[in-house]
């Protein structure tokens, strides 16, 4: 859920979504869901000469599984907050695993 929450903070920001087929779409992030599917508006394909198919497309939905990267604008990203959130997420998923019955090794 960490990155779902993170992308919710990015709604309204300009992002560049790079797909696994190398198509890169620049646009404003409109919404995101738990699968990290994205809705983008005011989109522009980065290399229009190579990919002229999308010239008339202004809004689109991108399936999360075809995304390779999302380029973000650094000032909109609170890196300290992200790192804290990542540590908390790591701990909470670990605790969920510990809740399963298994014998914990003795602490040295």
């Amino acid at each position, binding site marked *: 859920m*960490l*990155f779902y929450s*993170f*992308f919710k903070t990015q709604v309204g920001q300009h992002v560049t979504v790079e797909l*696994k087929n190398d198509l890169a779409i620049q646009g404003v992030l409109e919404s995101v869901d738990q699968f*990290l599917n994205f809705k983008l508006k005011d989109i522009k394909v980065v290399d229009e000469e190579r990919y002229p198919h999308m010239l008339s497309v202004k809004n689109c939905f991108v399936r*999360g*599984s075809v*995304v*390779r*990267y*999302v*380029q*973000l*604008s*650094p000032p909109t*990203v609170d*890196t300290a907050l*992200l*790192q804290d*959130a*990542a*540590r908390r*997420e*790591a*701990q909470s*998923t*670990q*605790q969920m*695993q*510990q809740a399963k019955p298994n014998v*914990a*090794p003795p*602490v040295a």
Partner: protein
Amino acid sequence: MTDVASANAAAAAGPTSSFSMVEEPLDLVRLSLDERIYVKLRGDRELRGRLHAYDQHLNMVLGEVEETITIVDVDEESNTQSVRTVNRKVPMLFVRGDGVILVSPPSRAS
């Protein structure tokens, strides 16, 4: 005062979690938070950047990223291969975990 607080925190965290202990593979990634890391990806891509966040899928947010793409060109006539690399820099990048092959702590060479 502080000792009591930290003891309580340690007790609440459970018997196996001490903060710097490596128990499972992902702990190695956790210890790389805020460090520069090397990530090998599908499609002959490599990244070097500062790790700001990750999850159990190896989705990541990296900062000050340098991406290296290795491209092998085959010359049809002479039947020879030539390898070239393309580099680019991205200031802040989300990487989807399904493309990740390995994550390594910063090597001295990079």
